[in-house]
């Protein structure tokens, strides 16, 4: 089960900030999210949304271990 974190406007859109989702890759995770919430799935595909796996930014697909932490990061505002 991946631990999925949402920040900023993505969390508002989804109505949650943290959830455990069964997925063995980032692609399957996105599919699971889209199946449950198509609007959120589409928002996560936006070009300005970055993905961090275990707190490191990644691009493309990745395998997810049982304790993976995946964060979807909307554009950062600065402090």
């Amino acid at each position, binding site marked *: 089960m991946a631990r999925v974190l949402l*920040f*900023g*406007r993505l969390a508002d859109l989804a109505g949650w900030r943290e959830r455990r989702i069964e997925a063995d890759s980032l692609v399957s995770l996105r599919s699971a999210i889209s199946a449950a919430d198509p609007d959120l799935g589409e928002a996560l595909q936006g070009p300005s949304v970055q993905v961090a796996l275990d*707190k490191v930014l990644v691009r493309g697909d990745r395998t997810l271990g049982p304790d993976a932490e995946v*964060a979807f990061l909307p554009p*950062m*505002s*600065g*402090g």
Partner: protein
Amino acid sequence: MSVTLQTEPFDPGELLSAFCQGRRETGGICSFTGLARAEAGQTRLLTLEAYPGFTDAAIAAMAQAAALRFDLQDWRIVHRIGPISPGEAIVFVATAAAHRRAAFEACDHLMDWLKSRAPFWKQEQGPAGSRWIEPTSQDLADASRWDRSAD
């Protein structure tokens, strides 16, 4: 050389005094304190969201790079997260160097980066409701002054 993200208010004077202690080889310390602005009553509350473990690591990595670039002896960054009321201190940056110019420039550089590129998500709550905000074009232009390609 440390970064702290905290929900509690801080006293910039205390932070600066502590940072100045025990320095026999430091010629200059520069500090900056940023306050949350009310924006003529349009902002009642600012809420900053961070990703613990990611946001602080990104800030520390950036500050360590700046320390090398400007030959800093030390630096300290404290940033509020969570709800922040107008007038409260939101960020404190201090830099220590053998000579003042490096301390000034590094502090300016760190603030430009923090304002535009640090991984925070900022929400303003005002009379018309709340909205997520992104860096202004001025913030981005300020930060780009320090890009190596522009040297």
